[in-house]
């Protein structure tokens, strides 16, 4: 599903150049669950942003379902993204002004779904995520775990083939963290490909494969021994 060849990303701040990614080539098969690990600043989030088509590499190739996507226009990327990719962030990134229901519904609005279809699908997911009793609350009225559930619900609402999760449990206590990981695990079992950036070995243990990044380079790629 994902093939990258020699991805390179440089951040420039004045005269200072920071190389976030150098020559990163990875492959993720359909249905895979990959954890990306590494110390702070090693380029994990940058890699995820590029994979998610919300940032551009300076060099290298990125094939998504066999199509080279790194040089597409913003609009083409947006179309590809909203059809295929769901995101889960460490800090949830829910929109404060929208209710739980509306946050979850948002991707479907951007996909141009009809109101009736949206309602049906949102009800389904809300049911599944066990948040029906909170669907009319605003994010600020929820606990962190609940917010992340909403974020996951939003990520899966359009049935994306790929979910990119950036430290999904980073702001949660262990109990809520486990709940979220279980959710992701279930989704993976149902066929969704997942790429997850994490610091936590425990979270990584849910994955099938770990990619270790260090200083912007892939240093080790193992099949998860727990598989």
């Amino acid at each position, binding site marked *: 599903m994902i093939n990258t060849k020699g991805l390179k990303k440089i951040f420039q701040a004045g005269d200072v150049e920071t190389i976030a990614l150098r020559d990163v080539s990875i492959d993720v098969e359909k249905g895979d669950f990959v954890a990306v690990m590494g110390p702070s600043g090693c380029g994990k989030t940058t890699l995820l942003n590029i994979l998610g088509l919300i*940032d551009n590499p300076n060099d290298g190739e990125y094939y998504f379902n066999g199509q080279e996507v790194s040089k597409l226009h913003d609009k083409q990327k947006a179309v590809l993204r909203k059809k295929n990719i769901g995101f889960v962030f460490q800090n949830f990134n829910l929109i404060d002004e929208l209710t739980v229901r509306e946050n979850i519904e948002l991707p479907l609005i*951007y996909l141009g779904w009809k109101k009736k279809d949206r309602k049906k699908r949102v009800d389904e997911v809300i049911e599944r995520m066990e948040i029906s009793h909170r669907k009319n609350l605003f994010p600020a009225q929820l606990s962190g775990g609940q917010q992340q559930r909403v974020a996951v619900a939003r990520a899966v609402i359009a049935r994306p083939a790929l979910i990119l999760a950036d430290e999904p449990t980073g702001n949660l206590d262990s109990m809520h963290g486990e709940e979220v990981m279980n959710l992701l695990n279930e989704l993976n079992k149902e066929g969704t490909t997942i790429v997850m950036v994490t610091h936590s070995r425990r979270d990584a243990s849910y994955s099938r494969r770990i990619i270790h990044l260090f200083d912007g380079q892939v240093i080790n790629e193992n099949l998860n021994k727990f598989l």
Partner: protein
Amino acid sequence: MISNYFKIGFRILNRQRSYTVLNILGLTIGIAVFVFIYLYVQSEVRYDRYWTDSENIYRVWAEYKLEGKVERVAITPFKLADELQKNFPEIRVSTKLFFTDPSDVNDLSSLTYNDEVFEVQNITLSDSGLFRIFDYNFSEGDPWSALSAPNSIVISSKVAKEIFGDKKALGKKLKSMRREYTVTGVFEENICPTHLNFDAVVSESSLSPQNLRRLKSDWYHLGFYTYLKLDDTVSVKSFEKRINEYTSKEIKAYVDSAGVNIDGYMIFSLDPVRHVHFNTTLSYDSPSNANPAYLIIFSIIAGFILLTASINYINLAMARSLKRAKEVGMRKVLGAFRKQLALQYVSEAFIVVLIAFVLALSLVELLMPWFNALVGKHLTLAGTLFSIHGIGFGVLLILMIVVLALGSGLFPAFVLSRFNPATVLKGNNFMATIRGKQKISAGGIRKILVIIQYVVSIGMIIATLIIFFQMRFLKNNDLGFDAENVIVINTPDDTAYFHYATSFINELKTVPGVEAVSSTSNVPGYTYGKALFYVGDSSGDSLKTMSFYVVDTAFFQLLKIPLLEGEYFKTGMENDTTRYYILNEAAVETLNLKHPVGTEFDASFFNEPGGKIVGVVGNFSQSSLHSTIEPMTILLYPEQSRYLLVRLNENRNEEALAGIQKVWSKYNKGRYMHYSFLEDKIQSLYAADRKMLSLFSYFTFFVMFISSLGLYGLSSLLIEQRTKEIAIRKVLGGSDKRIILLLVKDYFRLVLIAGLVASPVVYYLMNRWLNTFSVHITLNGWYFVAGILAMMALALITVIIRSYHVLRQNPAPALKYE
């Protein structure tokens, strides 16, 4: 989908309530001021547009040259209208309207009914063409025939109500000092604005046969407005040419028959009646005529005020969007197109603008009486909305809502929706890409917009200062005489008056509180007459046109006009056969007289020459300081007086006034005493300028207020973003003063740049304005420095108010937050 944008918009606005309030407040004021200016300008523009076939109605004005001097006047000979009507069949109707000097209220300004005297300000004279051209509605009588018969009078419904109450006016008798008139019609005051301004009209056939004969023969007696209603098909240019061919022949024949040798000409031109109100270039025209430049200036200001409010919205939206970056980023991640993001911003702007509109219109309705008093009009919002112009006004309002919402919403939407989501999610100072090349940071755009606001504010502050000081200068300007504590009384316009004038004046002098009394032909500082004078001997080449007053012996001492040479008029001189003159300095200079005192001098209207100059006085103001001081001659000839000047011992001495009124009533039975304070009369010359000053001051205040609101909001947001920096500085020992300076420094720079942009523009415009006065202040750097400093002070105060709160806070929480 759209309703969704609005729903979210409402929530966002509700959450960030203080910014919403700032925005709505700014826009409300901006829109309200705009609507006021619109209504004002509209009411001016609509002058004389609603007469039937108003596009075919013209007023004739004259340009004449006499003794080397060219004058353009709104008044024409009495006979012009009839002559043209007789000879040019393309004229459907013509009429003439007597020119009443607005300063000159005399006997005709009061009417007696059942022995009760009523003051009626504007009584004029016309013929039956008047109401055929200007189709006033008549509540009584027939407009077409009302002015046909001799001794007919048509009165306004207001006058009718005042005199007759609810009773019918038609057929009732009203008396002036000379004759009795029969009311033949009552017209409704026009709701549509017009330059015509009369409360009552008498028929021309009421004039005495000898007066009528004189007027009908004389081409050089200018004293009437002439109006023509032409056929649709007439080409005005060729018509003007043809009438001038005709009139110049007639005038030449008239001059030849009179046997005088006049070097000059008189040509007539046509002004569409719709343009009359905007013509301020003619003498003897309606004083309420509007300078179109003021209207343009006001319209531009209206636009600027809206722009200022709009810029507030844009700036606050952009500054706020740093806080909203996460939301924008997330929406992009979730696949929102730019159009969809833009729509969200625009719907928010739409909500704000809509609320502001409702509030603004309510505010306009509420403040309308105050505004009407300020501009001297009778405007109503509902009146405009539900009148025939309502559609245009309604469309304009809707258009404004759309333009404001799009203008305010699209700009931030355009800039912000361009950002790379990954960058925005990090919350850096983002860059906008314009056509893929240039990069302008949001901060840069904000600065440019703030500079635009400051340019407008500073420009208006400076302009207001200049207008204010010029007005003060005019008020304090040495008129050349002492106008304080002097009242002006109109004397009866009747030869019988001169039989008792002396005893009347003498008795006035005995009223306690009265210091001096003098009679004069003109109100000093206000109006003057013009005539031809012989200097030296009475041969033709020494004929000069000069302004003149005719006064009595007390005139100069009463007004305290300084004597430079010779002597003042002395008691006894008025009985001599020699006529005595006093000249002003300017006249001596113009005539180039080395030894003026004793020089032979006389007005050409005296058949037998026999006058001399006895003194020279300092220049004194003769009329509005918009015009220059002219060479002037003052003749001792009390019988020609039209006004009495009375000097009181103290200002507004009520007791003395009552005493004067008593003496007046004793000598002038049945006559209304029209009087005014000389100072008021002189100040009334600047009424239009003062109106402009007060309007300008209000506009300036609102522009400053709106930009301060914007600055307040903007600095709030920027301070919020710099909370951490401020905390670190405090921890490191920065004093409050230094931190405030740091915060305000940026604004100072912007104010300075704006000041540099505004100054030359204001200098150019205000210099042009000042040059319309014969005396004016000189523009120096201080006005500009003061304007810039005022704006800086305002910025400083705003930032201090805003940062006070932050500076009082404990720095620890700000540092912990990341």
